[in-house]
């Protein structure tokens, strides 16, 4: 800083004196101390970091999900369970259900029947342990105008006394688990990928939070944790899995996973279970006896934003019959319950 030679007029012929005098050392030391103290003061907000904020050594060194051995996974699940216990005081059951063989999941949504009540949104929030503040909701219900399938004319914030409103129709949108997912294409660290049963999953411990996938998704299906998600401990769903609904941390992406902790053990997703009109249909499209197979075969089905070419696994359909209306339909296995 204050070098003895800062005076230019004295720079020419200087006798060979040691550059470091006691005064110069003091001055330099003060300057260094000043710089370091300013840096420390600038970094002082870091004192608010809690031990929970920083990853432990094991989490830091954890491998990508696809490279984890079964022992690695067991240790990771135990670590997550312990974290949930510490953070929420809830003993969670954290599993890692593998994809089922011969299963490709497909979702059908009957837009003749959806009334826009938004119960699916909140059932999903509860099931998947999404943050309540700031609010994260995987499903967004669009109130569409007559004659329009363009989302530009949709109303996201309808709040009428009654739904369905006349001359509107309702289109819930969530992750379509596309067969050619642009989010998987763009992720620089392969933190998101598509599983064999069609579900696009995220390894929350691998995501670096660059949000490129969020920019890439044509259906605005991915969500980012801008801060630590807040979930009331009493509302926590303790039935969790590694790739779907375990509580996330700040700085990572999340999205709908077709409730894979339920669907991979044969259950229906939470959004479907709560729908009062039964507009949502889910199942294995490879099974010729499933509802979704029937729907895709016989109904007028369409794909949202088909022009982006992502081949979604989420199909909107009407109740009128499609091109096979001359064919007799005998149900393959008439299902009469109870």
């Amino acid at each position: 800083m204050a070098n003895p030679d800062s005076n230019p007029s004295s720079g020419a012929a200087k006798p060979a004196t040691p550059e470091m005098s006691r005064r110069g050392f003091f001055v330099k030391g003060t300057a260094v101390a000043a710089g370091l103290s300013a840096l420390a003061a600038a970094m002082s907000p870091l004192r608010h970091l809690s031990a929970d904020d920083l990853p432990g050594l094991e989490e830091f060194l954890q491998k990508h999900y696809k490279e984890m051995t079964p022992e690695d996974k067991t240790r990771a699940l135990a670590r997550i369970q312990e974290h949930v216990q510490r953070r929420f005081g809830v003993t969670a059951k954290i599993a890692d259900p593998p994809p089922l063989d011969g299963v490709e999941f497909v979702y059908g949504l009957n837009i003749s029947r959806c009334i826009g009540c938004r119960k699916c949104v909140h059932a999903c929030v509860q099931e998947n342990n999404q943050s309540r503040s700031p609010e994260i909701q995987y499903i967004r219900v669009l109130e569409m105008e007559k004659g329009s399938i363009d989302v530009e004319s949709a109303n996201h914030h309808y709040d009428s006394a009654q739904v369905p409103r006349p001359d509107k129709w309702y289109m819930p949108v969530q992750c379509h688990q596309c067969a050619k997912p642009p989010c998987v294409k763009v992720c620089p660290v392969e933190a998101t990928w598509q599983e064999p049963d069609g579900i696009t999953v995220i390894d929350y411990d691998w995501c670096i939070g660059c949000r490129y996938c969020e920019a890439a998704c044509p259906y605005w299906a991915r969500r980012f944790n801008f801060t630590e998600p807040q979930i009331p401990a009493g509302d926590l769903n303790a039935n969790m899995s590694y790739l779907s609904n375990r509580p996330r941390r700040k700085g990572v992406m999340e999205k709908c996973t077709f409730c894979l902790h339920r669907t991979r053990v044969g259950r229906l997703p939470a959004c479907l279970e709560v729908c009062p009109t039964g507009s949502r249909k889910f199942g294995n499209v490879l099974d010729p006896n499933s509802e979704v197979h029937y729907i895709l075969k016989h109904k007028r089905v369409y794909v949202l934003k088909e022009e982006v070419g992502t081949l979604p696994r989420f199909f909107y359909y009407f109740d009128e019959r499609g091109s096979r209306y001359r064919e007799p339909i005998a149900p393959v296995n008439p299902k009469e319950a109870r």
Partner: protein
Amino acid sequence: MKRYGTFLWDCFRLSFVGDWRYHLWMTCLTLVALGGVYAYCQQFVHGLVTTGMTDQVSWGLYIANFTYLVGLAAAAAMLVIPVYVYRNLHLHDVVIFGELLAVSVILMCLLFVTVDLGRPDRFMHLFWRFNFPISMLTWDVIALNGYLLLNLHICGYLIYCAYCGRTPRKAFYIPFVFIAIAWAISIHTVTAFLYVGLGGRPFWNSAIIAPRFLASAFAAGPAFIILTLQVVRHYTRHHVSDDALLTLRRIVQVATIINMFLLACEVFTEFYSDTRHIASSRYLYLGLGSQNALVPWIWAAIGMNLIATTLLMLPASRSLRTLNIACALAIVGIWIEKGMGLIVPAFVPTPLGEVVEYLPTLHETMVCLGIWAFGLLVYTILVRVSVPVLAGEVTHAQRWSAPNPRPLSASSWRTTHS
């Protein structure tokens, strides 16, 4: 190797030597940079909620600055091409400043990307699983870091040779210079492809983005260099000829004309066809209903760019004062148009048609200013170090092996205005 150690030590010590104006500049930059560190630490504690970004507008000021600065870095090639390809020797003495600018600007780019990450502690995941060649971000990582290393090598080698008092060997830097030319075009093309490759965002999914990037980069970059070269000329003894500035003026002139033409192409394509896909352009230029926060910005940017283009086309801009005004207008206008006018509108409306506007927060702005200050700090230090070393005033022999070792002095600083 020992000489390299003393070289670095001497450079370190030399960067603190200067008169009061230099110290004032550096102290101010340091304070702003520390403000940025402070704001970033708060972001590290609370998460990206300290910024104005949302799920709807998930990239904001950080990526806007990153995009602009990648363009500035690419513009270093604009100095190199005339000298090494066309043998235009007017610029020969100032090429080094373009490359030093590239180094400091790429550091700024890397910092902007790092502060934008949700989990910067996980950046090493890029080494373990690198989605190359499918993800354009991986191309960008390679391109930016490669460009940084190239320029560090070229500048470092030339300066180190001057420090050691020997002539640089052509084989050690000429090939890298030519690689750097191609690489400079590539870094900005790759950055453009980050956006162009997203089919779900029609505002970006257009072939004109990459050429527009390059045109605006080659306008803003040399304009920036014109201004900084005049600062170098004013405050050091390094010779910067007016011919160099006028050659750069020619480059900026052509680039701004092309930039304006490409803007006209874009505007026509969007508004004449008037499809539903132009909602983002409509938001940018006209606003959507009462949500029109970007409209004054983009029209100001277009105005600035038009004035700059007109000034540059007039012979009046051969005078430095008019040239400086034109350059400043071009720099700011292109910053607005490329940063806020390119990144933010693609997110409004969202792919599902929702309109959520974006406003950067104070913390976000402090981090951005801090990174800019850091970049200017690095650039000032690099210029401060390279001018005396390249002039032969600071060599290893003089500093360490002569009978009267010469102290580092401020004698290479100009004390009177020329």
